[in-house]
């Protein structure tokens, strides 16, 4: 069973865009940097890296994949989405 689709209006999209692109304060940065990386988190990231590098063995292949993936993603956006 798939999750119900939620329609997001332009105002909500704009709010989300502003939130995503807001500047982080020095305090927020300090707090974020004080949180140590857990072994589980590190292992998860390295597992993703291993998968990505196995699937796309050269940096050029990875860059090409990201271009395709981004183009696919923007096609499904209701309006031009930028700023990843």
């Amino acid at each position, binding site marked *: 069973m798939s999750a119900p689709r939620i329609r997001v209006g332009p105002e909500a999209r704009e709010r989300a865009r502003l*939130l*995503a*692109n*807001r*500047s*982080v*304060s*020095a305090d*927020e*940065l*300090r707090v*974020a*940097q004080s949180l140590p*990386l857990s072994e589980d*988190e*590190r292992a998860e*990231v*390295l597992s*993703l*890296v291993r*998968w*990505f*590098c196995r699937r796309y*063995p*050269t*940096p*050029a*292949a*990875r*860059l*090409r994949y*990201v*271009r*395709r*993936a*981004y*183009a*696919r*993603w*923007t*096609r499904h956006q209701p309006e031009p*989405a*930028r*700023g*990843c």
Partner: protein
Amino acid sequence: MQASEFDEIAFFKGIERSGVRALLIGRRALVVLGLPVLTADYDFWIHVDDIALFNAAAESFGLLPTHTPEEARQRGRYVLQNDETVDVLVARSLTAADGGRLAFDELWLRRRSVSLEEGVSVSIPSLDDLIATKRVRPRPKDLEDIRLLEALRGVEPE
């Protein structure tokens, strides 16, 4: 679906052959290192004296600057664009949100050259320096990227 016709590997090759002191930063540098993240734009930090050379290399790909080299030097950044967007930093140094200072010349000395494929390389900052660039005007996604990059410490790059 296909991405646009822009040949980014040829673009990187053109930059390399131009001799511009250019560091690939931003999320595309993360992708080079093996991190699967999405991004729209290209981000470079180039030497302030290499703006004209960089623009000339980009022009053959239809990328045009939003500012003259002199304006760019004063602003510290500009954009090259057509249907692609290349954000270009040209400041001699930057100050991070935590007060840390990054000087281009120092990052350039510590850079890594990464082979994209046979015959094409790109220069990226060292891991520590790439993390430091993420602390300049950070957004929430930069905090996430810092954690991803932190996880790569001690790992031999592909």
